[in-house]
């Protein structure tokens, strides 16, 4: 078996007295969708922030592609192949949807000042490629018709899609999504699920934080459940769903059985 694409062991982060992340082990295999769920304030987003270099862990190690990995700064993380979206949408508001996606491609392109100033053929080719790919990505997530809209002009759900397209633009191996379905209705969630499915089929791994249990259970290969920063269950969706600890802390009455 191939080694896991990404692992974390013993991940810890404390804020004052709050143990936001407390010894989390995670593993993402190639082409898998891994769910990260748990009650509010369990530490899911904090985990993301640790993985993507926004926070520095108090303890713990990562490996990525079998090698030890130290997320020094967020831009390095993106370059290495982990892209993310944000729980509270953070798009570039003065830019159009298309430009937002173009920015996502930044770390996969390389033309510098001179290229831009002299419009070298290489630069023009690259620029062409950026536009085409960005457009293709907007198409992919289904908002191509809004390519020329400013990001702020999109509705909440479309902004979420745009964030996904922007994250995909860096051609990541791992796509980390923080509550992509928030603010979508059931039908739209189904469409989102199709999209995630497609992304997975295109060979990317997904790390997914989501509160919509149906979505998580429907798409994830593995699920990790956090509570108070600790892993309280880990395994297949079916397994996790049965765990009394998870029912107690997270699912509650609605989802018995």
């Amino acid at each position, binding site marked *: 078996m191939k080694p896991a694409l990404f692992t974390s062991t013993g991940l810890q982060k404390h804020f004052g007295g709050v143990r936001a992340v407390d010894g989390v082990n995670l593993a993402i295999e190639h082409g898998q969708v891994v769910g990260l769920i748990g009650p509010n304030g369990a530490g899911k*987003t904090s985990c*993301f*922030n640790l993985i993507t270099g*926004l926070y520095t862990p108090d303890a713990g190690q990562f490996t990525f592609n079998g090698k030890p990995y130290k997320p020094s700064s967020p831009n390095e993380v993106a370059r290495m192949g982990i892209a993310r979206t*944000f*729980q509270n949408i*953070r798009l570039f508001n003065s830019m159009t949807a298309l430009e937002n996606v173009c920015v996502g491609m930044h770390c996969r392109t390389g033309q510098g000042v001179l290229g831009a100033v002299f419009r070298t053929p290489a630069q023009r080719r690259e620029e062409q490629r950026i536009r085409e790919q960005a457009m293709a990505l907007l198409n992919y997530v289904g908002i191509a018709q809004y390519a020329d809209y400013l990001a702020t002009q999109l509705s909440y759900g479309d902004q979420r899609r745009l964030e996904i397209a922007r994250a995909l633009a860096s051609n990541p191996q791992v796509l980390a999504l923080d509550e992509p379905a928030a603010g979508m209705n059931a039908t739209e969630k189904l469409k989102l699920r199709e999209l995630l499915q497609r992304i997975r089929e295109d060979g990317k791994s997904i790390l997914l934080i989501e509160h919509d249990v149906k979505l998580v259970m429907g798409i994830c290969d593995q699920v990790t459940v956090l509570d108070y920063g600790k892993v309280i269950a880990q395994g297949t969706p079916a397994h996790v769903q049965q765990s009394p600890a998870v029912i107690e802390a997270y699912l509650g009455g609605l989802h018995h059985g």
Partner: protein
Amino acid sequence: MDILLQQLINGLVLGSIYALVALGYTMVYGVLGLINFAHGEVLMIGALTAFSAISALVGINPDLPGWLLLTSGVVAAIPVCMAVSFTIERFAYRPLRNAPRLAPLISAIGVSIVLQTLAMIIWGRNYLIFPTTLPNDPIVLHTFVPTPEADYERIVSITPIQILIVVVSALLMLALTFMVKKSRLGKAMRATSENPQIASLMGINANSVIAATFVIGAALAGVAGVMVAANYAVAHFYMGFLPGLKAFTAAVLGGIGNIYGAMLGGLLLGMIESLGAGYLGQLTGGFLGSHYQDIFAFAVLILVLTLRPSGLLGERVSDRA
């Protein structure tokens, strides 16, 4: 020893002046996030108004006691400053509440030019002599015995007006802190500063809160203006520029938006300048003199901000994603 003590007093006085101006600066910044470039000009208006008021009183009765004159100066300056500030807030800043971040800044610069010019029209271009209100003679705090190396009058002194400045700025800081921390207005100010829209959902009238802040800030500027003019005994349409700049620096040094920060920043800046001017030459063996005082002050500022990006007491904006 006498020199060091005196320099510390100099720093304290200068710092208190900076702090006094910085308090108003920081309040307005705290609620609007606006660098109110016109704050120094409001101070100038305060000083010149007090000048006119006091001169008029002296004209009527030259034997009025100094404290009465000074008080009337302050009493005259405050409402004028408030009115001026209210007007500029209403007409030059409020319409820009939702404009891009730098628009109000430019408007403020425009206001500052206009106020200076108006003052030039009203009070003329010449330096005005601020009437003596409190006795000009120093109060000697301590006398050192002259030694053969230092056989001059070794005194450590402070003037009544300087004592007043230190006391007033400390009192105003306390009053402001109390207001911001404890009162309803204070709470409304902090909410408005963070998000006026959401604040309005709490039933807070953002416009009046902001206007109130401006007016309070203006009152502070008025007091500061009178103190500055009374201390240096001159007033001039351009006198607001430098205090405004220093106060801005002080407010940022302490953490802009924070009242203790303004006080701390002001005092610190005063001390830095005072000790810098006094000792840079000695410390560097005459290589750097007092002309490097401002460079020194800015260098300290830059150093502080590189270590603490939001000032000494500023809130650290934690970036949550």
